[in-house]
């Protein structure tokens, strides 16, 4: 039923139905933005990249295989756009705003904890960060991430545990303790 609705939505989008396009964007924009925000750690960059990813998804809608779920397909495009954005960023690192050093509120408020984890995420390798964000933020399973990243399940599991270990180590080094 859900698949049928998705297919109908895409068909309407391809028929240049503006309402369908709005529906499509509304359906994915928050997930795509969240992925970009977590991957890039910068709101403006994340908005630009999310917009770019959604436009690209719209552009390539015709090539979506209806036998496959749409969500991972869109997330894969977003992930690729993040990778491109990060590659551009590495060429001009001075333009990147980093997150604040240890937040004053970090011991008392959730937002402080979130900042700490986001800061820690940026030290991870890009593919490990993608794996972590896909697993926790996008709530994909190890199997789905493996399919999306076209890698063996074992590799994804290894990356997931390695990311967690690195993040935990980083948080401990910064004396982060949840209340």
């Amino acid at each position, binding site marked *: 039923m859900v698949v049928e609705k998705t297919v109908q939505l895409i068909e309407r989008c*391809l028929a*240049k139905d*503006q309402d369908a*396009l*709005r529906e499509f*964007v509304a359906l994915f*924009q*928050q997930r795509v*933005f*969240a992925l970009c925000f977590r991957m890039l750690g910068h*709101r403006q960059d994340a*908005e630009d990249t*999310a*917009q770019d990813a*959604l*436009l*690209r998804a*719209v*552009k*390539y*809608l*015709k*090539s979506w295989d209806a036998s496959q779920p749409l969500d991972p*397909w869109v997330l*894969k*495009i977003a*992930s*690729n756009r993040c990778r*491109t954005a990060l*590659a*551009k960023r590495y*060429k001009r690192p001075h333009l990147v705003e980093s997150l604040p050093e240890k937040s004053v509120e970090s011991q008392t408020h*959730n*937002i402080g*904890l*979130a*900042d*700490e*984890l986001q800061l820690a995420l940026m030290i991870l390798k890009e*593919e490990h960060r*993608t794996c972590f964000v896909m697993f*926790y*933020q996008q709530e994909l*399973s*190890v199997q789905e991430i493996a399919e*999306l*990243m*076209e*890698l063996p399940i074992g590799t994804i*599991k290894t990356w*997931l*545990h390695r990311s*967690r*270990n690195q*993040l*935990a180590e980083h*948080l401990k080094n910064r004396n*982060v*303790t*949840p209340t």
Partner: protein
Amino acid sequence: MNCNEFETQLDRCIEEKLAPTTELVSHATSCKNSSCCDRWEEHQLLERTIQAWLASVPVVDLTEAVISNSHFQLDDVEVLGPVPMIRKQQPQSPATGAIVAVVSLLVTAALLIAVTLRSSTSDLAINSPRVASENEIIPQSIEQTLTEEQKLRELGQTYASLMTDAKTRVSETVAMVIPDEDSMLTEGMGSASAWLDAWSERLEPLETKLDNTLRNFVDETLTKMNDQAS
């Protein structure tokens, strides 16, 4: 539950997003092994931090921005899939501008040589070359002109062979560094740049020599013409 089982079950809970069983929690809180204690402490720290992190994503509305830009996107829909997540990164031209500059320089030089050689040839044709007899003394000015022309011709041939070589190398380099919109990372960037630099260095003295020879040749010709005119 022993410590190994604890490790395995905790890994499974993480991978399958399951809540820890009472048995697992019981082992974690009662085990004296520092490895289990540390592992459990880290797990709890991360789980709580992740919960806070998940709740802190700003809400955005990109609908209008996307819709306003998407009208032309659908007009030229391409039947292409998204690029694979992990793939071999294709090299991108590291210095497309430099390649274009070198190619332009070579083409300009080729035209210059072609024009000069044609001019020399036509000059020879106009002045009807003749075979000098054994005892005939060739005037020094004509001899000098012939020497200059010979020099120029040799330089032109060297330049042309260098350009042919350069053209081949540039073609190979261009073929090697076809840009890919999705990949900003490059491979072999250093070698291509080094090659271009080396070529610039090799061509520079030759260019200077050629320029000087041409300048001398033109100056002398003009002087001769002025002398004849006066």
